[in-house]
């Protein structure tokens, strides 16, 4: 699985003396679904921000479709096809659900009518069609997460980055979002997911990368990775003997 599509090489981010992401390298082929897991503070969100350009990298490079995009700001990467959600959801609360999705759709649909239609389609896709006219501030947490996905999809993105979209959702809501992500993956979208919930990662049945203290400690399919002693130690600590 060499990553001609999206590749990270030696990606590092330091905040003063703290190395939040340390020498992370992996590649994604088009259509891959990869989950990034790791304990709190492992650097998952920082890694995400390096990939989408929200933070500048200290060292290393990010390449997309063979082009070096390491120094590009987030808005340029979004134009290239990066869509993302935020861990603390950034819905535009003063706008309606439909208008939120439109903000994404305008990127490739200049016209108001065309953008609103495109936004409507994306809301239907994530199951928010009936909530279109409601102010986004009145949506539930689960709905906001799905709205963020709809906004990213409305960008016509080719890579979707989901930052803990399941956090704080109940069982049914988690099942809904899993089904949505799997469906998008089946339709050919390349997806990078940060996830805390190991059940979710198992459900995806696809490649998992484990971060601990900013470094990659495991990379492989869920069964192998989740039984790796290093991973168990990172999550649960060492067993006392």
């Amino acid at each position, binding site marked *: 699985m060499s990553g001609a599509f999206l590749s990270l090489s030696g990606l590092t981010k330091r905040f003063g003396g703290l190395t939040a992401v340390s020498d992370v390298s992996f590649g994604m082929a088009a259509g891959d679904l990869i989950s990034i897991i790791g304990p709190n503070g492992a650097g998952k969100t920082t890694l995400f921000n390096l990939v*989408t350009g*929200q933070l500048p990298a200290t060292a290393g490079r990010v390449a997309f479709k063979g082009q070096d995009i390491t120094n590009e*700001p*987030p*808005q340029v990467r*979004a*134009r290239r096809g990066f*869509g*993302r959600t*935020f861990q603390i959801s*950034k*819905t*535009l*609360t*003063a*706008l*309606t659900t*439909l*208008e939120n999705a*439109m*903000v*994404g759709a*305008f*990127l490739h649909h*200049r*016209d*108001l*009518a*065309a*953008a*609103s*239609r495109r*936004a*409507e389609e994306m809301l239907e896709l994530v199951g928010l069609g009936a909530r*279109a*006219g409601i102010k986004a501030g009145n949506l539930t947490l689960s709905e906001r997460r799905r709205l963020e996905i709809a*906004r*990213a999809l409305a*960008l016509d993105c080719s890579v979707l980055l989901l930052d803990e979209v399941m956090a704080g959702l109940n069982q049914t809501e988690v099942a809904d979002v899993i089904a949505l992500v799997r469906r998008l993956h089946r339709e050919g979208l390349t997806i990078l997911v940060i996830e805390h919930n190991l059940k979710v990662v198992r459900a995806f049945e696809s490649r998992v990368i484990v971060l601990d203290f900013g470094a990659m400690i495991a990379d492989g399919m869920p069964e192998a990775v989740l039984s790796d002693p290093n991973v168990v130690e990172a999550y649960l600590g060492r067993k006392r003997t």
Partner: protein
Amino acid sequence: MAVSAPRRAAEGITTFAAEALRIAAILVVLLALIWLYRRDPFTLNILAYTFLFASLASAWNIIGGFGGQFSLGHGVFFAIGAYVTANLYIHLGLSPWISLIPAAGLAAGAAVLVSWPTFRLKGPFFAIATMALNEVAFVLANYSDTLTGGPRGLSVPFKAGLANMIFASRLSYALLMLGFLAVCLLVCAYAYRSRLGYYLQAVQIDEDAARAAGIRVLRVKLTGMAMSAALTGIGGAIFAMYLRFVDPPTLLSLPDVGVKFALIALIGGVGMLYGPLAGALLIVPLEFQLRAGLGASVPGGNLLVLGVILVLCALFLKRGIVGTAVMLWDRARRRFW
């Protein structure tokens, strides 16, 4: 891939065409108001000022409201428009109608130039920077004798005529200001009901989310600022021809110009299309009546009452007149339908 362009917008989305119809209806009502008072110069003067300040506050609202960049420096763009037009008229005899183009252009150019660095600042820091800009402009206007006439100001000789934008009757001025208001409302509606308007709102609410949606934040802010400043420059030009006298305190006094645009928008409903119009319809006539009725008997009494009204608005009309009306309407609709 063939994309058939859908012509109708989705339900719940107001298009520019629909908004233009609303504006036409509003203009008819305001025109009727002028007709009603056509023989009353005192009221016509109030109406002219009301429409002018409604226009200027609407122009401010593009960047200050939709874009959330709380500028207190719009007096600078106002002054640029006024000085450009007065100078071109006095020295070259150029018709003010033609001067509207350089007035708008220079105001927009100056706005882009000073906003480029200041847009790095957020919230109150941006407001303070623009306020400082206004004060610097005040000093410069006082010292640049050749361009502004310094503290003595510039007087435009009275030569009535349509080409000179100078009229003998107040009625013509009221109509002129209404025409300017029509232009401003249409430009605002176009900005609000288009990609630019949504991008400005996205930038206002959350710049990180805006960037993630591919929005070039600085460019969107500069575009909004340029549109806003261009209209403000035209307003300054018209104001100069109405007063036929301009000096630094009339154009650049912070409380009477720069802050007033923002204040009117805040009282009417900041970030809402018709907020500034509603604010101007309340505040400007009130100010005139208070000054005429109370200012003579109790010195400063008019300002006192105005101050109390502003405090009450801040306490009870947090979303402004239009915002509160919309909220009450929504609540009523939910209860009775």
